[in-house]
C-alpha cells in the first residue's frame, strides 16, 4: 500500500466518509441476529499442554533457528530461536509459515504416478519398483537437480546418481553458484562468507542482503545491532543497484546502477583505490591494474553507468577510511549474476586487505562429506543447469534418460521458462521429490512427496553468505500428516533395491555420522554464550565440550566454526572481468529489473498460505501483478498509472499493471518475482505473472557461465 502525503490525509478524511455511508440501522438488526446465535461454525481453538521445541527452518533460505510452539503435541506457530546464530530471535515471513505449510492445500498427500494427463495414487512399494526398473534401464544417463543448497541429502542424491552413471548432478542456480564460479576463476578455495557482525562500512553491489540474499535474517540482526534506535549509526551501508529495494530502503546511501553494470561500478571504485595507492601481492595484480587503468577510469565508468567520478571517489574514500570495510556482490533478484561482477567485487575486498579478516570475507571450508562417492558442494555448484537444459532443448546435449528432481522447481524457477519446459519434455522418465504440487511435479512421471521439515530429520550446513561455518539440525516434531516420506530415506531404499551400496540404511544414520565428523573438526564449538563473530573478532573459541553434540543440536543450538581456508593462489582474474565487464547498450524499450521477496516464497514453496496478506496492493491487485517504473520512463514509453500492459521478451508475453514508483532507475522496469504460478494451491495459482520467464540466458564472456542479470523487454 503506497502511502504518500495525500493518501495520509485520506486516512483521516476516510474516517468521516465511512461514518456517513455506514448503513448502520439496517445492518445492525441483521448482525445482531447473527451474534446472538452461538458461533458453532467457527473453528474451536485447540486445548492441551503447551510446549516449545527447537528446530531449523528449511523452507526459508535464511536458515533461521526456530522455536515451535506446540499444543498437545501439534505444532501451532514458529518463532525465531534467540539461541541460534542465524536467527537470534528473528524470523522471516517464510520461516514463520513452516507450521501452516503442513496443511497447505498444495501438499501432495501420497506417492503418485502419471496416468495420461492426471495422476493416480500408488503405494511407496510400487513407486520403488517402478523407479528401480526405470532407473536400472536408464543407467549411464541419469541426471539430478537439487533445490536444497545446504542439505546433506545432496550427498545421498549425487552418490546414487553417480553410481547410476551420472549425466549431470545440478543445483538450482543462485547466489552461491556465481560466487563459487568467481572464486574458482580467482584460484581461491572455500565458500565466501561475509562477516557483517564485525564490519563497519558495507558496500553492497546489487545483493538484496536484507531480503533474499544469503542469511538475510542474520544479516539484519547484525545491521540492527549497529543501529541504536534514533541515535547515530555505528555502521555505514551503501547500496548500489537498479531500485531502492528492501535493502536500499534502510541503507545510508542508494546509488542507482543497472544490474548488468555492477562489475563496471566495482572496477570504477578500484580505479580510485589504486590511485590512492592500494596494492596487493596476490597473483594477477599487475594485469588487474592495467585492466582497471585501461578501461575503468572515471570517464569510462560515467559513460557506462551514469555514475559520476566524485560519487565513486567518495565510496572509495569511506572504504579506505573505515576499520572494517566489506564489499558484498550479488544479484538484485538472487540469481543470474554471472561470475565477473563477483570477481570485481571480491577484488575490492582484496585491495582493501579484507580476506580472512574480522569484518571481511572469510573463505570457509566445506564440511567433510560422509556418503562415499558423493559430489562436494563445490562440484555441484560448478554445474551449469540453464546451459545444460538449453543444450538439451536444442539437441546439442543428449537428453538424459531419467531425471530426479529434489526439492526444486526448474519449470518455474529458471529463466527462459519455455526453453526449460521443452528440455524437460525431452527427458523420458522424470521423478519429483517435492512436498507440494509445483509446476515441475506436474510434468513428472512419478511424484514422491517429501515430508515437510517439521516432519523429518534434515540438516543445514553453512548457507551461502554466512560469515562462519554453521551446522544445525532439522528434526521431526510431528508425525507425517500424510503418506509422505523423507526423500533421502527413499533414495537410500532405492539404492538398496538397485544393489548400490551407499553405506547407510537410513538418513538419520547419515546425519549422525555427519555430526560425529563435526565433533572431530578442530576449532568447532556450540554457539551458546560465545558467538562465532565474537571469536572472529578475537575472543577465544570455547572448546567443544565433551558430551553429546547431537543432543545440543536437537535442542536448537548450532555448531559453528570460524573457518578460514588458507589461500595460496587467490588472484585477481582480471582477464575474466576485462572480457565481461563492458557497458551494455541502452535498451530500446526498457530493461527488466526483477526483485524477489521471502514473503512470496521460493519456487519450491509457492506463496505461503499466511503470507498473501502481507503482499501490498502495489504488487498484487486482484489477479494482476504490478510492475514499477519511474515517471520519466513511463512518459517515454507512453504509459499511465494503472494501465494494463504486455511485457514481451524471450518469445514470451506477460501481463502487468503499471505502477509509477520513483525509486526505480530511469529506463528500468522493476518486476516482482514469485507470482504467476500455474500449479500449487489457491494462494499461489493464477495470481499475476512469472516475469522470470521473460529473461533470456546468455553466456558470460570470460567465464562461459550462464547469466540472465538483465533482459530487454518490450512494453505495449
Amino acid at each position, binding site marked *: 500500500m503506497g502511502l504518500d502525503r495525500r493518501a495520509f490525509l485520506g486516512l483521516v478524511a476516510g474516517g468521516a466518509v465511512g461514518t456517513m455511508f455506514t448503513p448502520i440501522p439496517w445492518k445492525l438488526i441483521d448482525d445482531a441476529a447473527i451474534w446472538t446465535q452461538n458461533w458453532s461454525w467457527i473453528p474451536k481453538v485447540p486445548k492441551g499442554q503447551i510446549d516449545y521445541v527447537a528446530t531449523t527452518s528449511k523452507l526459508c533460505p535464511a536458515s533461521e533457528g526456530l522455536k515451535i510452539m506446540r499444543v498437545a503435541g501439534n505444532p501451532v506457530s514458529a518463532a525465531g530461536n534467540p539461541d541460534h546464530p542465524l536467527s537470534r530471535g528473528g524470523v522471516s515471513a517464510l520461516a514463520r509459515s513452516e507450521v501452516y505449510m503442513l496443511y497447505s492445500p498444495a501438499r501432495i498427500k501420497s506417492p503418485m504416478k502419471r496416468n495420461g494427463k492426471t495422476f493416480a495414487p500408488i503405494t511407496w512399494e510400487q513407486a520403488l519398483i517402478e523407479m528401480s526398473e526405470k532407473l536400472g534401464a536408464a543407467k549411464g544417463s541419469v541426471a539430478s537437480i537439487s533445490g536444497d543448497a545446504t542439505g546433506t541429502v545432496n550427498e545421498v542424491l549425487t552418490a546414487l546418481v553417480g553410481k547410476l552413471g551420472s549425466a549431470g548432478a545440478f543445483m538450482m542456480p543462485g547466489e552461491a553458484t556465481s560466487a563459487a564460479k568467481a572464486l574458482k576463476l580467482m584460484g581461491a578455495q572455500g565458500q565466501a562468507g561475509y562477516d557483517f557482525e564485525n564490519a563497519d562500512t558495507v558496500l553492497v553491489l546489487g545483493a538484496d542482503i536484507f531480503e533474499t540474499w544469503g542469511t538475510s535474517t542474520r544479516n539484519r540482526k547484525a545491521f540492527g545491532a549497529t543501529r541504536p534506535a534514533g541515535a547515530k549509526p555505528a555502521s555505514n551501508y551503501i547500496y548500489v543497484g537498479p531500485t531502492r529495494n528492501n535493502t536500499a530502503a534502510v541503507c545510508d546511501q542508494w546509488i542507482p546502477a543497472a544490474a548488468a553494470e555492477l562489475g563496471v561500478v566495482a572496477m570504477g571504485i578500484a580505479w580510485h583505490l589504486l590511485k590512492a595507492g592500494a596494492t596487493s601481492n596476490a597473483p594477477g595484480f599487475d594485469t588487474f591494474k592495467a585492466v582497471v587503468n585501461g578501461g575503468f577510469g572515471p570517464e569510462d565508468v560515467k559513460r557506462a553507468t551514469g555514475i559520476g567520478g566524485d560519487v565513486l571517489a567518495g565510496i572509495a574514500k569511506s572504504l579506505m577510511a573505515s576499520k572494517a570495510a566489506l564489499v558484498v556482490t550479488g544479484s538484485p533478484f538472487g540469481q543470474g549474476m554471472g561470475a565477473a561482477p563477483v570477481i570485481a567485487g571480491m577484488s575490492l575486498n582484496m585491495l582493501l586487505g579484507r580476506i580472512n579478516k574480522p569484518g571481511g570475507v572469510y573463505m570457509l571450508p566445506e564440511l567433510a562429506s560422509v556418503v562415499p562417492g558423493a559430489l562436494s558442494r563445490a562440484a555441484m555448484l560448478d554445474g551449469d543447469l540453464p546451459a545444460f537444459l538449453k543444450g538439451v532443448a536444442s539437441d546439442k546435449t543428449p537428453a538424459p534418460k531419467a531425471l530426479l528432481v529434489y526439492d526444486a522447481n526448474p519449470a518455474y524457477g529458471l529463466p527462459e521458462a519455455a526453453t526449460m519446459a521443452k528440455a524437460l519434455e525431452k527427458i523420458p522418465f522424470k521423478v519429483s521429490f517435492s512436498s507440494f504440487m509445483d509446476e515441475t511435479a506436474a510434468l513428472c512421471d512419478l511424484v514422491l512427496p517429501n515430508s515437510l521439515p517439521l516432519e523429518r530429520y534434515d540438516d543445514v550446513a553453512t548457507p551461502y553468505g554466512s560469515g562462519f561455518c554453521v551446522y544445525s539440525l532439522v528434526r521431526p516434531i510431528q508425525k507425517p500428516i500424510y503418506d509422505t516420506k523423507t526423500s533421502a530415506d527413499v533414495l537410500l531404499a532405492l539404492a538398496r533395491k538397485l544393489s548400490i551400496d551407499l553405506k547407510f540404511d537410513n538418513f538419520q544414520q547419515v546425519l549422525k555420522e555427519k555430526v560425529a565428523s563435526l565433533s572431530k573438526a578442530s576449532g568447532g564449538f556450540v554457539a551458546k554464550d560465545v558467538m562465532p563473530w565474537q571469536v572472529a573478532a578475537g575472543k577465544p573459541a570455547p572448546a567443544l565440550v565433551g558430551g553429546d553434540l547431537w543432543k545440543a543440536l536437537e535442542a536448537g543450538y548450532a555448531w559453528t566454526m570460524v573457518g578460514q581456508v588458507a589461500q595460496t593462489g587467490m588472484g585477481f582474474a582480471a582477464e575474466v572481468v576485462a572480457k565481461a565487464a563492458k557497458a551494455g547498450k541502452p535498451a530500446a524499450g526498457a530493461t527488466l529489473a526483477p526483485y524477489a521477496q521471502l514473503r512470496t516464497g521460493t519456487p519450491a514453496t509457492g506463496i505461503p498460505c499466511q*503470507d498473501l*496478506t502481507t503482499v501490498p496492493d502495489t504488487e498484487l491487485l486482484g489477479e494482476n501483478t504490478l510492475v514499477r517504473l519511474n515517471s520519466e520512463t513511463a512518459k517515454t514509453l507512453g504509459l499511465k498509472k494503472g494501465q494494463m500492459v504486455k511485457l514481451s521478451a524471450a518469445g514470451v508475453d506477460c501481463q502487468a499493471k503499471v505502477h509509477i514508483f520513483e525509486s526505480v532507475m530511469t529506463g528500468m522496469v522493476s518486476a516482482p518475482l514469485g507470482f504467476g504460478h500455474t500449479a500449487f494451491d489457491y494462494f499461489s495459482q493464477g*495470481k499475476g505473472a512469472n516475469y522470470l520467464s521473460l529473461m533470456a540466458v546468455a553466456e558470460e564472456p570470460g567465464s562461459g557461465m550462464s547469466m540472465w542479470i538483465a533482459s530487454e523487454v518490450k512494453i505495449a
Partner: protein
Amino acid sequence: MSGQKKEFPITWGMVIDIDKCTGCGACMASCQTENNVEPQRDASNKLRSTSWMTVYELTNGKSYPDHDIAYLPRPCQQCGNPPCVSVCPVIATEKNENGGIVSQVYPRCIGCRYCVAACPYHVRYFGWFDPVWPEGMEKTLSPLTSVRPRGVVEKCSFCHHRWTLAKDAARAAGKDPEDLADGAYVTSCVQNCPSGALAFGDLKNPKHKVHELIKSPYAYRLLERLGTDTQVYYISRREWVRKLGDNYLKSE
C-alpha cells in the same frame, strides 16, 4: 475527540524505528498466526482482508533520483484518548484496564462499525467473512486467542494474552506481576522482527528501554495534533518521515 483521558500506572507501548524497517512483512505474518487471523485466499483485496498489523510504504513524493521511501508498520496505536471508544454504542471497546490497552470484546460487538469509521489510523477490521482454514489447518490455531466470527470488528490487542502469560510466569517465580522486567512481555510482531525495528515495554517504567526511546528527539507519534495521545511511537532520523507522520501541510 473523545471523553476524558485516563492515566494508568503501567502504560504498554511500542516504539518503531522506521529507519530499520525493511518492509519484509514478518511482523504481519507473525501477528496473523499469533492471533488466529485466517489465511485469506483473496488477500489482494485490501478492502475485505484482515491484517491487524499493516506495513505501509511511505514516500517523500519526489521524483527520481531524489525519491526516498520508508516503511511504516502500523499496529493499533492504543490511543490514550481513543476516538473509537466514545462512538461504540454497546461498550464493546474500552480503555479502562491497567496497561492502557484498548480492549475489544468480540461477543459484545454488534458490528456497527462506528469504531472503524472513527479510528484515524485504520487499525480496525470488520470481518466480512467467516474465517475458514484450509482442511486440517485448524490444528495450528493458537489456544491463546479466540477465533472471531464474521460481523465483528477486530484489531491488534498488543497480544494481550502474552501479558497474562507473563504475569502468570512472574507469579510462579515469586515476582511482582505488576512490575515485569523489560522483555518479560513482548508482542509477537516485536519478538519476530528480524531487523529489531520494533521495541515494546512499559512507557512509564524507567527500567524499560522504551521509556528512554520515546524521549529521543527523533521520536514522534502519528497524527499527534489530533490529541489521541497514542501509545505507539515512531522514530526516524529523516525529517520528511516525521513530518509525514504528523500530517504536515505543504505550507508548514
